[in-house]
C-alpha cells in the first residue's frame, strides 16, 4: 500500500456555526462539494454523507485494505485519511470504476465492467466479496504502475489487502488475466 503524500496545509472553507467545512474534490470524475467535519475521515464522508457504501471497512486502523480508494491515482486506506486532506484532489472509489469502463474494456457484456472487475468475475475471485472493492482498487493502481506485473509484483501490490475467504489464488489469476486484457484487448 502506498501512503498518500498529503500536505498538512489544507485549503478548506472557514468553519461555519455547526463546525462543518466545505470539501471540494473530484469524485469519480464529478466535481463534488460536501460539508464535512474536519476531524472525520474520507471513509466516513464517502459512506455516511455521500452514501457511497462500496468502500468497505473491516478494521478502520489501516490494516485490512478494505477501504482502499484512489486519491490522484494512488491507493490509500480511506480510514486513515482526514477528509480535508483530499481537498482539490481526484478520488476514485469502486463505484467509479465501471462507469469509466469503455467498450474495449469489457466487450460484449450486458453489464459493462472495468477490465479488473470483469477479470475478478471470470476468475471466480469473489466469495463473500467484502474485500473485493478494496482489492480491485489496489489492483487497478498496481496495473497503472506496472502493466505486466510478475507474480511477486502482484503479491507486493496486493499485500495490504486482506481476504479471509479465497486463499488469494484466484485473485492472483484475476489480476494476471486483467493485465493481459488491458495490454491486448480482445
Amino acid at each position, binding site marked *: 500500500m502506498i501512503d498518500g503524500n498529503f500536505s498538512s496545509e489544507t485549503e478548506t472553507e472557514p468553519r461555519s456555526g455547526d463546525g462543518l467545512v466545505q470539501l471540494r474534490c473530484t469524485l469519480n470524475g464529478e466535481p463534488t462539494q460536501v460539508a464535512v467535519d474536519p476531524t472525520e475521515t474520507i471513509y466516513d464522508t464517502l459512506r455516511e454523507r455521500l452514501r457511497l457504501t462500496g468502500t468497505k471497512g473491516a478494521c478502520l486502523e489501516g490494516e485490512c485494505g478494505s477501504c482502499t480508494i484512489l486519491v490522484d491515482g494512488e491507493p490509500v486506506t480511506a480510514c486513515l485519511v482526514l477528509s480535508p486532506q483530499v481537498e482539490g484532489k481526484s478520488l476514485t472509489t469502486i463505484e467509479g470504476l465501471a462507469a469509466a469502463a469503455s467498450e474495449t474494456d469489457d466487450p460484449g457484456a450486458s453489464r459493462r465492467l472495468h477490465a479488473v472487475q470483469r477479470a475478478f468475475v471470470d476468475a*471466480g475471485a469473489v466469495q463473500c*466479496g467484502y474485500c473485493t472493492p478494496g482489492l480491485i482498487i489496489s489492483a487497478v493502481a498496481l496495473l497503472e504502475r506496472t502493466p505486466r506485473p510478475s507474480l511477486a509484483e502482484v503479491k507486493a501490490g496486493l499485500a495490504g489487502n486482506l481476504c479471509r475467504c479465497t486463499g488469494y489464488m484466484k*485473485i492472483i489469476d484475476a489480476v494476471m488475466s486483467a493485465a493481459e486484457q488491458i495490454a491486448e484487448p480482445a
Partner: protein
Amino acid sequence: MSADGSPLNIGRSVERPDVVAKVTGETRYGGDLEGPEVLSVAVIRSPHPHAKLTHIDFEPARAVAGVVAVFGPDALGGTNLHGLIRRDHPVFCTDKVRYRGDALGIVVAETAAAAAAGRDAVVVDYEPLPVIGTMAEAMAEGAAQVHARGNVLASALIRKGDADAALAAADHVVTTTTHTRGVDHAFLDLEAGCARVVDDRIEIHASGQWVHEERRLIAIALGEPVERIRIIQPPTGGAFGGREDISIQIYLGLAARELGVPVRLQYTRHESMIARHKRHPMEIEYTLGARADGTITAAKVVIRSDEGAYASTGPAVLRKSVSHATGPYRVANIHVDGVAVFTNNCPTGAMRGFGACQLAIAYEGALAELARELELDLVALKRKNLLRDGEGITTNQVIPVASAIDCMDAALARLDPAPTPDSGSTLADRATASWAARSYASPAPHLRRGYGVSTICFGIGYGDGYPDGSRARVRISEAGVVEVYSGGVEVGQGLHGLIRQIAGEELRVDAQTVEVIASDTLTTPESGSSSATRQTLFTGNAVKLAAGDVRRQLIDAAALELSLHWEELDIRDGVIRAREGDGQAHITFAELVAKARARGFALDVTALYQPRTIPGDPYTGLSPRAFITYMFASHVAEVLVDVDTGEVRVERIIAAHDVGKAINPREVRGQIEGGVAQGLGMALMEEIVSEAGEMLNASFTDYIIPTIIDVPTIDAVIVERPDLEGPYGARGVGEPPLIATVPAVLGAIADAIGVGVHEVPATAERIWQRLHQTAAEPEAAQ
C-alpha cells in the same frame, strides 16, 4: 441429466449469482443498509472478566447529549438468556459478569458517537471475583465457580475394545501432548445491521448462519411470539462459524421494538473480537500403541477444551472431538475422555473444523512420532493403517466410501511434476514414486526443507441423533420462471449458486435463469444452519427432491395438455416437447402454468430432507450412524525452515479432497484454497493471547491473519468418489480444507527439523525452542 444424458449444470463452473454486484460495490452488507438518519445503538460491556455486579446506574447515560434511550434487562420482556445448545448466556448481565465484554445494556442515540459517549457514561459498581484464566485454574481444588453449577460444562467419551490392555501389549507406545490456541474467525464484514418495526413485526436485518433458529432465540429473549420476529439476512461477508452465536440481533430488535423507529448497530473490530466466541483452545494427551510392523492397536486420549465463559456450541464441539479422535485410521481399541471447562475467557464456540481440527493435529502428530520411533516411512505407515471401504471409524460407524488413501495418492502424485515413465500404472504406484522422489535440496545452509502429509476425515452435518434437516420450496412462477425458496444463508460459500445449479439440473433449465429467494424467515422455509459442511448435502438434496417433483408435475400436466404419454416428452430450457414427431407438439412453462394449476398440479413443492442419525451410546460413545456421511482429505505441505530463527516459509500445499461430486468445480477449488489459507493462519500465526481473561491482541494490528504474501501456491485437487446420500454424489467441502492443512504444515516442519511440533501456532519462537530443546543444554529451551 439432459435428454442426451449429459449434465446441464452439474459439474460446471457456473458464475455466482451475487458476483457482479460484489465487484461493482453495489452489494449492501449489514453495515451498508442504513445511514446516519437512523438512531445508533451501542452496547455497554464489562471491563472485568469476572465480577459481581453491585450496582448499575444508567442515568448518567441518559443525560448525554443525543442519547435517546438506555435499555437494560428490565426492558427485554423475555428470558434474558440466549445460547445455541444451553441458554446460559444473559443478554444483559444482572448479578455477575463472566468475561471481559459481557453485555449489561444498550444505549440508543442520534449518532454513533453519542451512543458511544452514553455507553461510557454508565456507572457500574463491580466487586471483582477471582479470575479463572486457564483450564488448570478452573479444575483446581477450591476454584472460583464461573457458573453456579460448577466449572465443568460437559464431558464425552469413547470406549471401544480395551485400550489399556492393548497398550500394555503393544510393541511401541508413543505419547504426545498437543496444545491449540483460540482463533478468531476474522471475517471482514463486521457485525452490523439494522432493525425496524413493519406491520407490527420486528424486522431485523443482520447476518447469522441459521435465520430460523436465530429468530427463535431472539423471540425467547424478547418475550415475543416467534412470528413477530422477521429476520432478513443481508449479503454476508464471511462467517466460518463466527456468526452462529447471537451477536447484535437481540439488541437491534429490542431497540426497534421499544422506540418504534429504525435503528442500526455496527461493532468495531475490537468489539467484535472481544465479544464474539472463538475457536476452542484444547489440550490433548495422545497415546498411541502399535505392533512392531506399525499396525496401530490402541489409542488413549484425554481432551480438555476451554469453553470460555458460556456454553455456546461447546457440548457438540466436544462430541465432535471425541468422535473424530482417531481420524481416518483403523483402531480397534480406543479410550477417549473429553471434558469441557468453563473459564473467564471469551466464550468459545463454532469455527470451521470445530473439534475435528484440534484432534487432527493430535492424531497426525502422534502418528508422525510413531513413524519416527519405528523408522518407518510416514506414507507407508499411513497406507497400512488408513481405513478401507466398509471398515469402522472411531465410533464404529461403517464407512462405505473411505477415501483417505485415494486422496493421499492423488495429492502425492502431484508432488513430482515430472514422474518417471516407469513409475507405475496405478495412482498408488505413481504416488509412491512421486513421494520417494521428493527433494531435500536447500537454497542455503540455514534453510531446511521438509514435507508433511496429512490424512483426515470429517463427519458432515450435526449428526448424533439431532433432527437435522433442510426444507426447500420449488415453484414455477406465472411467468414460467423456476423459483427456489430456501432459508439457507449465503455467507460467501456459494450456496445460492449451488441451489440454482441443482434446481436448474432437475428442471432442465440454465442455472442462471433460476431465481433464488432466500434467508428470510417470513418468506422461506427453514433449511438449517450454514455450518458443519452440511448445506450441499442437506439443502442440495431438499432442492433436488422438490425440483424433481415439480419436473414430474410439469411433464404429467404437459402430457395431458398435449395428449401424449409422459415418456414421449422431453423437458429443456423451459419447453416441454414431444421427443419425436413433427416437432409441433410442445408447450412452454409459461403457457403451461395456469393450465397445470387448473388441473390440480400445484407446480409448487416443499420438500424436506432429514436423514436419520443415531446418538452415541452414553456408556461407550459408539454409534452405527453418528453422521450421515464422512468426507476424507489429504494435504501435502512443503516448507523451508530457517534453523537460525525458527521462521517457516511454506513453499507449496497440495490439497486433495473427495467431495463426491464437485457441483461447481471452481467454487469447490475456491473453498479448498480459502480453507488452506485459514489453516496456514492457524498453523503458523493465529493465536488469541489472553492474560487473566484479558485479550491482549483484539485488533487486526495485533492479531495477524495470512496476507497474499503468506500464502504459497495451492494445488487444489478434486477427488470424486460419489457419496451414497449426497445430491449427484456430492458431499460438501467447507471444513476439511482447514482441518487437513494444519497437521500437514506441522508435519513438514517436523520433517525439516527432525523433531515433532505439537503446539499451534508454530511461531518462529516456538520452533526455535523445539530446535534448542533437543540441543545438549536443556536450559536453552527456557
